[in-house]
């Protein structure tokens, strides 16, 4: 019974104080809102920033899931320093023989394809579409991009090595040309050459951030060798690859770098004349940046909560001096110092928590409106639960911290003096 009495009395004291505080805040509505504005704005802005970051992260992560973190891009690049700084672009560009045998020498790399694309005009019967994207690929591309051939067949080894005049179409392009669903064997004209359609490639996932916005929405594919031959060997192309798993992407990068340096006869000690980018490392970089942003945002909210807290302290001091007689009376009718302390502390905390809640509501509105910004990739913006709990927790802590001084001041008032106060 004795053990229970203390917590029950404490809870009762707090409940009473909350009721009193709510009444007091309601009685001074305008003042209370103005006072908590600092906290409202602080919480609203930080939750919106965190929501945007969380949304961006969720978006990128879901993109990566469909697209795989084991992807690797390799492209020729003139270094900023060293012997190759001023060599011509023709020296820098990849030659097709430089990537021959690459797969055999790089055990961590599972797929590899040279890749180039250009804008082209496609004709089928009397219909033509300008500005479609024509890609030169090898069949490994389907595995790397996770976009298989859904009707017909991919390029065979013979198609690729002989550079035959065959092509694949994306399903949207087929529909736009109003071809049959299974249009294999039909002839289309790309530029000035005629190709036989081998099959249909699955459409790229919609709304993807990576590679999605590049080029036209209509795609046609021909064997890389065909494209290379048409250019007379003067083709600037890149290489797409996939490591066996995301975990070995660093090894894959090292192997690729080693292999290409050898093939391109780069003198040891000179910088690379190409770049290898693994998606895995980009994701890692992004996560680091997101964490940094979150930390900076938290720091900013810390400052605005500090400013808000000073406002709270100020208004609580005003409240204490305004209500000196009330405090005197309460003490005279039997309020202990602890009850007065609790009353004012709870009032500050309730004030801050209301500010925090309003701020969260405002943050939610902000989040909903930034989610509607077109092309900002923020449509998945949301306030994570930890951010809500943290904002309210911080608000309450600000209330306790900045409410303590005024509350102690109130609790220490001498009842006789307080009742005499004018």
């Amino acid at each position, binding site marked *: 019974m004795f053990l229970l009495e203390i917590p029950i009395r404490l809870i009762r004291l707090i409940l*009473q104080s909350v009721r009193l505080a709510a*009444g007091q805040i309601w*009685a001074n509505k305008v003042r209370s809102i103005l006072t908590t504005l600092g906290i409202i704005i602080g919480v609203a802005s930080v939750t919106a920033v965190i929501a945007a970051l969380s949304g961006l992260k969720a978006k990128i992560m879901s993109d990566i899931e469909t697209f795989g973190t084991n992807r690797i891009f390799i492209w020729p690049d003139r270094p900023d320093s060293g012997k190759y700084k001023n060599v011509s672009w023709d020296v820098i560009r990849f030659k097709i023989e430089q990537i021959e045998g690459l797969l055999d020498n790089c055990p961590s790399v599972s797929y590899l394809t040279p890749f180039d694309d250009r804008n082209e005009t496609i004709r089928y019967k009397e219909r033509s579409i300008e500005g479609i994207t024509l890609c030169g690929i090898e069949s490994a591309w389907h595995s790397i991009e996770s976009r298989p051939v859904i009707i017909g067949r991919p390029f065979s080894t013979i198609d690729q090595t002989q550079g035959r005049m065959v092509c694949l179409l994306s399903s949207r392009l087929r529909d736009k040309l109003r071809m049959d669903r299974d249009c294999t064997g039909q002839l289309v004209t790309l530029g000035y050459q005629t190709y036989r359609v081998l099959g249909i490639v699955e459409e790229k996932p919609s709304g993807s951030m990576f590679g999605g916005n590049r080029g036209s929405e209509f795609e046609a594919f021909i064997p890389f060798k065909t494209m290379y031959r048409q250019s007379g060997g003067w083709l600037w192309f890149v290489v797409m690859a996939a490591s066996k798993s995301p975990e070995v992407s660093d090894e894959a990068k090292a192997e690729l770098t080693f292999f290409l340096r050898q093939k391109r006869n780069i003198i040891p000690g000179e910088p690379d004349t190409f770049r290898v980018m693994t998606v895995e490392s980009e994701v890692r970089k992004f996560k680091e940046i997101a964490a940094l942003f979150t930390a900076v945002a938290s720091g900013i909210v810390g400052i605005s909560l500090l400013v808000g807290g000073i406002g709270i302290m100020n208004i609580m001091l005003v409240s204490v001096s305004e209500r000196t*007689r*009330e405090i*005197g*009376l*309460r*003490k*005279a*009718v*039997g*309020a*202990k*110092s*602890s*009850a007065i302390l609790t009353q004012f502390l709870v009032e500050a905390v309730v004030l801050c928590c209301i500010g925090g809640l309003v701020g969260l509501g405002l943050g939610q509105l902000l989040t909903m409106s930034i989610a509607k910004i077109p092309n900002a990739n923020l449509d998945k913006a949301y306030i994570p639960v930890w951010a809500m709990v943290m904002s309210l927790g911080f608000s309450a802590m600000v209330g306790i911290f900045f409410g303590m001084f005024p509350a102690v001041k109130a609790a220490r008032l001498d*009842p*006789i003096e307080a*009742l005499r106060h004018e």
Partner: protein
Amino acid sequence: MSTAPVIISLSNVHRVYKVGTETINALDGVDLEIGKNEYVAIMGQSGSGKSTLMNLLGCLDRATGGTYELEGLFTTEMSNSELAMVRNEKIGFVFQSFELLPRQSALENVELPLVYSRHVIWKRKELAKKALERVGLAERMDHRPNQLSGGEKQRVAIARALINNPSILLADEPTGNLDSKTSKEILALFQRLHDEGQTIIMVTHESDVACHARRIIRMLDGKIVSDVPTEEDSAYVWKQGGQRL
């Protein structure tokens, strides 16, 4: 003085204030006994120590010397929070300027002492209603102080003082802010409470208010100079040369 049990007993009480290097003897050796159901008026000019005595009797202040026993409790040795509990349970204050909380209804104002007592929430309203009925204000319990007249405000304050059935009702110039007609009403209410058995101690500087009490204590320079039943008080006044003190 009377056969009723003694509830207040002061012996050789001193209250010394230090203002800078000066010391002021606000109470200078006060001995006083007040029995149950007495109706006492404390009179004196300002600076005579009557307010200090009042604060002391109300446990708002502590004596610097001597002992004060309230219903067998030695308040001199109590901590601040124990004193708060004594004030809550044993003392009802009535102030000159009513001291009602402006934003709360009459009923909520009367409930205030219960907030700090052990009474459970659902009993508070009932008790407050009863107290308001006792002072004849049951029909105005939802009014706020600014909707009440001065006399009604003071009656709300009296109801608040009575709600915990205090041992003593301490009134500090209860009619100081009221006109003569309302003063009479309040004094009649005190009379009725006294008849019901309430112990009342009233501080005033007006003789025509004090004469309603049964016993008049006069103070001067921190000392009790006269402590007689009301009928005999005029003798003191006469002795002082007819001055109204």
